[in-house]
């Protein structure tokens, strides 16, 4: 890649830059900051589009009462049951049960606190979806 061809397409990097290796006019390799690349931006937006779509599906299910609000917070943090279980140190099958509305509603305070503390939110926030 030529130094002049280093893409500068703003996108997922916000105000940051990444480094690209490119050849200068003397044929020497130099490090050139780039503000992003269209191809990489497209691929990233695609990935986040899917994540957002999944999240809105979960919100619908939570509103309909098919899933507990915990499912929303899990999805929002891009986690699955296994990962969340590891973080809060509650076994997988229990976390899975907590995704049920009826079970979640009857959860004792100490378990709710554990989740809330992990997600860094209050218990009230844990019990609802926006």
């Amino acid at each position, binding site marked *: *890649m030529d130094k002049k061809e280093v893409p500068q397409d703003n996108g997922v990097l916000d105000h*940051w830059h990444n*480094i*690209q*290796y490119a050849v200068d006019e003397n044929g020497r*390799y130099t490090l050139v900051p780039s503000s992003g690349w269209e191809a*990489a931006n*497209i691929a*990233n937006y695609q990935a986040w589009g899917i994540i957002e779509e999944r999240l809105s599906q979960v919100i619908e299910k939570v509103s309909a009462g098919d899933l507990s609000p915990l499912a929303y917070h899990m999805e929002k943090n891009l986690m699955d049951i296994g*990962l969340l279980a590891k973080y809060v140190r509650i076994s997988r099958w229990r976390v899975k049960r907590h995704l049920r509305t009826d079970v979640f509603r009857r959860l004792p305070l100490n378990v709710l606190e554990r989740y809330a503390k992990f997600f860094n939110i209050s218990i009230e926030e844990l019990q609802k979806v926006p």
Partner: protein
Amino acid sequence: MINFAHQQSAHCETGVLSGLLSYHGLNISEALCFGIGSGLFFGYFPFIKVHGLPLITFRSSPGAIFKRVTQRLGITVESRKFSNPETAMKALDRLLDQGIPVGLRTGMFWLPYFPSHFRFHFNAHNLIVFGREGSDYRISDPVLDEPVLCSRRDLTRARFAEGLLSPKGRMYCVTGIPKHANLKQAILRGIREVCMTMLTPTIPLVGVWAIHHLANKIRVWPKRLGHEKSKLYLGHMIRMQEEIGTGGGGFRLIYAAFLQDASEILDDKRLHDLSGKMTLIGDRWREFAVQGARICKGRANGENSYDILSDILHDCGHMEKEVLREIRKATS
């Protein structure tokens, strides 16, 4: 306070390595680290799934470059893992108080200074901590423009991220640099290993062979998976290639930069010419990403668009085989 000069680099692992070694007086560029550590790689593991998509990797496993470079140059490193976050943070503080910059392995999801689009659960991100300011840590993250601050709470979380490749608080610092590092020998060993894994791998899912294998697969993606799913696969592959640790095209260009440095150190004109050819390979990989992104966005929908991609990949495979063979000849 440690007088640490932040230098931005393309890849976190080689960036941290180059930064730490430069601090300890061994000036060695990121590209040299990449080459000595045999960073060039290709692997296609359809049975390992990342978010339900096949693992396509352009990098050797996390930590491998670091290990190879330190071994080949005779650098001594102290590396520790922890089970208790409090102990881990105290150990970090102790080293910082002694004035030693420390490398950490972290989970990207928990590092608040990253743009939101990068905060995936990726657990092999390397960074350097070089100071404290109140309850914040001064961090030189090699992929960012400038040093940043990170709170103790966030850093602790990042060090104890869970899931695939969980870092378990891993931290490392350089303890000894040899007076006369044998750079020439290290470079040759680095090059030979790359040629071996890429040209004559022990398993057929790695190296040039795997590039051709994937190229054949891509041709039938739209038929096998349907258009929507093929787009997902493609987007995933581009992200693996260009985002996660700069991947395919970027890595080929770094390797080209390494060949340039190596040709000077070894005083071998042939490697300089081969560097030019390696640049062409990197450009070809980038072309693949551009074409792939067009399909992802729906700008190219024709039946033959996947054939074009497949042809580009086959091209990459052929070119890499040819160049690596010449490199092997030049260094044997």
